[in-house]
């Protein structure tokens, strides 16, 4: 029970004068070091649920545990100083410098000056802002993306174990948002905080979350699972609708070429071999074309059987040049893109020096998806009849 960083038990919020609760009996166990995304349609209560964790909204009933400690009735100000909080509109204090903004919680906690100075510099570096240049600036002198970074730095200042983020990248343009998301993911790899992240964007949830809670009205949990499982085994129609069309395509984003069985038995040859040797090798294999490599093992052209049969053909001119290649760390989505754009309906897997390692084609992709579905088949069956509580 105390392996979980945050536990919500029967958390409920009923606003005075309303018959139905805004948030109904939420039960959730959140392991330490994970990014848990609360996602759902507008008005489902996801922000209300998140705000009950740091008691900005007081729960009507239910309990909250932080590292095993019941904080439902603890002093809210103390609690909030232990939890980082980032909101969509950022809310930097306009009348204070960036330094003072970031130093807010450390000052509230009584840190000494030197420790605060060191921490502010470290945080500005971490979020990619030069401390010397930005420390004494005011929020109005900074761009939107910069303010967002300062907002995150400010929330991390006292090194809280838990962070709550309410659509933190929502108020930016898509390009800035993607940058911020990527930087945040890299940061999280280092700091491994427990983060509750609220968004209405399922794609952001899939990208950012280690675990996703799809919420219906009144924050009733429709499914609480890893992104992979949600995409391949949605619990019900609501979840399917929420993911939208293209769930399988989205799923391809989550697997990498190196994780799947790509072909490695494609016949290859080099131009210093004899024509007959090459032709025999191709004829002996089940493939219809062979891949010509250079002396470094890098792919050059595809040659088919018919290309060999033309008596005076120059093997360096006939056939198709190879145009599609992917590296092992690329996603299956990138591989599919290469395949579609390339001229051969497949993509060569190449290593760090562009040398041939294997091949992905549409069969590879389909096999991968089938494997994912099979792996989740038991869960898929069980998910059709979900139990009362969903505990990760």
């Amino acid at each position, binding site marked *: 029970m105390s392996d979980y960083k945050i536990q919500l038990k029967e958390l409920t919020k009923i606003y005075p004068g309303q018959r139905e609760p805004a948030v109904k009996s939420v039960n959730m166990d959140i392991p330490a070091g994970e990014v848990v995304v609360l996602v759902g349609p507008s008005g489902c209560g996801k922000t209300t649920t998140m705000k009950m964790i*740091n008691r*900005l909204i007081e729960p009507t009933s239910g309990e909250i545990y932080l590292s095993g400690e019941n904080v439902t009735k603890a002093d809210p*100000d*103390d*609690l*909030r*100083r*232990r939890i980082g*909080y980032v*909101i969509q*509109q*950022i*809310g*930097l*204090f*306009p*009348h*204070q*410098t960036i330094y003072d903004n970031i130093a*807010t*919680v450390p000052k*509230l906690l009584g840190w000494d000056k030197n420790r605060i100075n060191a921490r502010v510099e470290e945080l500005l*570096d*971490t*979020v*990619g802002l030069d401390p010397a240049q930005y420390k004494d600036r*005011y*929020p*109005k002198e900074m*761009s*939107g*993306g*910069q*303010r967002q*970074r300062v*907002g995150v730095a*400010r*929330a991390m200042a006292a090194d809280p174990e838990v962070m*709550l983020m309410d659509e933190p990248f929502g*108020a*930016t*343009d898509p*390009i*800035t948002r993607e*940058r911020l998301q990527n*930087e945040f993911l*890299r*940061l999280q790899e*280092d700091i491994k905080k427990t983060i509750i992240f609220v968004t209405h964007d399922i794609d952001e949830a899939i990208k950012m979350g280690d675990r996703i809670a799809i919420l219906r009205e009144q924050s009733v949990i429709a499914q609480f699972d890893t992104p992979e499982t949600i995409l391949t085994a949605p619990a019900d129609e609501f979840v399917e609708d929420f993911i939208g069309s293209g769930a399988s395509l989205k799923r391809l984003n989550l697997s990498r070429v190196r994780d799947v069985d790509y072909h490695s038995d494609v016949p290859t040859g080099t131009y210093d071999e004899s024509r007959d040797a090459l032709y025999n090798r191709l004829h002996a294999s089940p493939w219809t074309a062979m891949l010509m490599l250079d002396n470094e093992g890098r792919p050059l052209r595809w040659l088919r059987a018919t290309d060999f049969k033309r008596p005076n053909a120059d093997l360096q001119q006939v056939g198709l040049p190879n145009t599609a290649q992917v590296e092992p760390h690329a996603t299956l989505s990138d591989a599919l893109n290469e395949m579609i754009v390339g001229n051969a309906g497949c993509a060569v897997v190449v290593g760090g020096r562009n040398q041939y390692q294997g091949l992905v084609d549409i069969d590879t992709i389909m096999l991968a998806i089938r494997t994912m579905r099979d792996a989740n088949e038991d869960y898929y069956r069980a998910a059709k009849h979900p139990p009362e509580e969903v505990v990760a």
Partner: protein
Amino acid sequence: MSITPTDTEDAPLEETDAQYQSSAPGERIAVGTLHGWRKAAHYATMPVLLLMVVGALALWVGGQELDSIEQRELVLSVILTQMRRHVALALWSTFFVLILAVPLGIFATRPKTRKFAPTIIGLGNAGQAIPSLGLLALIFFLFRTIPALPSTGRVPVIAALTAYSFLPILRNTMVGLDAVNRDVLEAGRGMGMSNRQVLWRLELPLAVPVILAGVRTALVLNVGTATLAYLFGGGGLGDVIFSGFQLRRTPVLLTGAILTAVLALAIDYIAGLIEEWLTPRGLD
């Protein structure tokens, strides 16, 4: 493991920029950006102008043939005493209105006591609707009925001036506090600031420009209204004006009137300096 973004792709956001501008209406000169002769002009223009006016007045009065009555009224030490009393009336009333109206304004904007706000505004409106002379007279009669309170002299005048400028400062306090960006306050609370810390460190500093604008206006109004103190033996430049009026001596009348105007502008200027000094840097 730091990441270096480039500034160029992060365009400022129009919709969130508003929260970083000051909410005080009217002309807001970005004082921090003034340099050189512009700065000198900003600070020196009013004092120079006032000195010129006073100088011109002195020269004109000096050049007049003053009869015995005028000479008696225009003795420098007397004028200065009346000016001093006048300033005292304006300052005391401003002091009292600050310690009464600002806390009341804070009280009326707290979430739990917000429901009293309309009542409070209503009372203030009533006070404001009464013309200053009428208000003064009412206070006079009120004080008359309470034996402990003096019904002449400075005290009833200060009480009346306080009542008269109560509403603008109360209203400005409430408006200023309400205009503070809610996201800033939510961020502060979410970070663990107590309600009192949010009030003192966030709400008040951010509302100061608007509150001070109200105080400055009230102060200048009070300088004008304090001329009525004459009617209640409160002293001040009103004495000079009214005696000039009743004795039909133009130099006396003009001296009183012009000096009152100069005093009002001088106090406005000083209040402006204080306003600049107290406005938090990130807001100008």
